[in-house]
């Protein structure tokens, strides 16, 4: 065990090496590209015994990974932004086939206007592709979560594709100290690749895959897939605990800080939650009871854990680094659904921040807290980053309870 100074892309690549991935297929796109470059070097140096498929598009990248999974191999790809949009069709295909492919994503917004900076639009628009979506807040987390990716995805109860998201540039390019694990330790934690009970393409046992299922039975199949995703929370939790036992670092599907007595709880995903934690601790120093609940997993959506985390807070601020055009942020939609049936329903406010890489600073979070104070306005969705009609007043819309 050593400490290295790595950026997020390197942390992802190093974890892929530790997982003894057998097939890598990826296509260049900023800010993910380094991951694949690092892996190419590992393969060409003989450090990683994998095949590299240098595909001609992201669509083909994920297709090649799916092909590898179809014969029982462990496969990996990395992408973001337009790349994920191009492979979107294959994302549905991969989950429908129940292939446990893992993808690293250095989040980046979607064009146009052209913008290479981070927000979560790229992964969140694919929220319904039946992939597990796990978000990292630091480079250490990128490494750790990538190490846990295959044990979760390949668990016989799951068998679904999984993506690990980390904000482009903020995590993909910034270097931080990372506590690493040895290959030996990794081999104890991650089962060897290429060993699966899944049905595979095998001339010894010829089966047919990917064929028609008629309407009469289609919903039954979809329900199973849906359950597998929802129930993967148990497997994730089990894996987190096993990881803690072996490596000491602790993970939860919802990570809380100061929520116990909080009157206001901030909810969100990604690197901005680090900033939120800092801002909240500063607020506490000023006597304001602010807590933070970081959604580690967005899919599966940890409803119960989230309700517990919010406790008796009166106000919940949902930070969305994305926008469901025409409505609200996408995380907010799931949070409101979660609390609608709760007896004690907090006021739920939504803040659209950090789109296209706009800096999220402690000031941004403080501004959200300010806007969320009771009586400030009667509306629920705020755009504090966009220049409002009057100096100091942001665009806001929607209905409150």
């Amino acid at each position, binding site marked *: 065990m050593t400490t290295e100074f790595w950026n997020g892309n390197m942390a992802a690549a190093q974890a892929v090496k530790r997982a003894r991935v057998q097939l890598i297929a990826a296509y260049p796109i900023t800010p993910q590209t380094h991951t694949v470059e690092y892996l190419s070097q590992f393969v060409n140096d003989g450090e990683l015994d994998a095949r590299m498929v240098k595909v001609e598009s992201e669509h083909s990248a994920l297709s090649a990974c799916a092909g590898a999974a179809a014969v029982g191999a462990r496969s990996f790809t990395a992408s973001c932004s337009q790349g994920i949009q191009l492979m979107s069709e294959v994302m549905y295909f991969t989950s429908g*086939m*129940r292939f446990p492919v893992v993808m690293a994503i250095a989040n980046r917004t979607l064009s146009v206007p052209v913008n290479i900076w981070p927000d979560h639009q790229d992964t969140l628009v694919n929220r319904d592709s039946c992939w597990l979506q796990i978000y990292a807040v630091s480079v250490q987390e990128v490494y750790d979560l990538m190490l846990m990716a295959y044990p979760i995805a390949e668990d*016989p109860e799951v*068998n679904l594709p999984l993506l690990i998201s980390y904000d482009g540039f903020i995590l993909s390019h910034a270097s931080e100290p990372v506590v690493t694990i040895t290959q030996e330790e990794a081999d104890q934690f991650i089962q060897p690749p290429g060993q699966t009970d*899944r*049905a595979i393409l095998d001339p010894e046992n*010829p*089966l*047919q*895959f990917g*064929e028609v*299922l*008629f309407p*009469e*039975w289609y919903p*039954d*199949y979809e329900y*199973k897939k849906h359950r*597998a995703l929802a129930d993967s929370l148990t497997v994730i939790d089990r894996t987190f605990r096993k990881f803690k036992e072996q490596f000491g670092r602790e993970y939860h599907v919802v990570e809380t800080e100061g929520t116990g007595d909080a009157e206001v709880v901030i909810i969100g995903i990604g690197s901005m939650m680090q900033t939120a934690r800092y801002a909240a601790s500063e607020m506490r120093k000023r006597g304001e009871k602010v807590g933070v609940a970081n959604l580690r997993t967005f899919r599966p959506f940890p409803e119960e854990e989230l309700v517990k985390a919010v406790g008796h807070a009166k106000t919940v601020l949902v930070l969305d680094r994305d926008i469901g055009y025409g409505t609200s942020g996408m995380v907010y939609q799931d949070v409101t659904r979660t609390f609608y049936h709760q007896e004690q329903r907090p006021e739920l406010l939504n803040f659209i921040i950090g789109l296209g890489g706009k800096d999220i600073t402690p000031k941004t979070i403080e501004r959200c807290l300010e806007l969320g104070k009771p009586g400030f306005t009667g509306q629920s969705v705020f755009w504090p980053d966009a220049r409002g009609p009057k100096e100091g007043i942001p665009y806001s819309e929607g209905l409150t309870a």
Partner: protein
Amino acid sequence: MGMEKYEKFVKDAKDVLTYPPGWSLDNKTGAWRATKPVLDHERCTECGLCWLYCPEACIDSESFDIDYDYCKGCGICAEECRPGAIEMQREETGEGA
């Protein structure tokens, strides 16, 4: 086609659906036929062209007997038969599968 088979199939599927070879045998495609190839063994030279050109593979490679459970009646065998030993006859109602 047996829906019960599908029900069990979907219920039993652990994760992905896979179809075992030969399920299709339930599809007695002979029922589609409007005309029926009839082989005159007297005129047959056993050249094997009918067997070769049958898209269904429903002509036996030795006896050249036609499997009417599956023959769709396309008539390629009759057309390609050099000695003209196969005749297409209008299917009586109720024939086929």
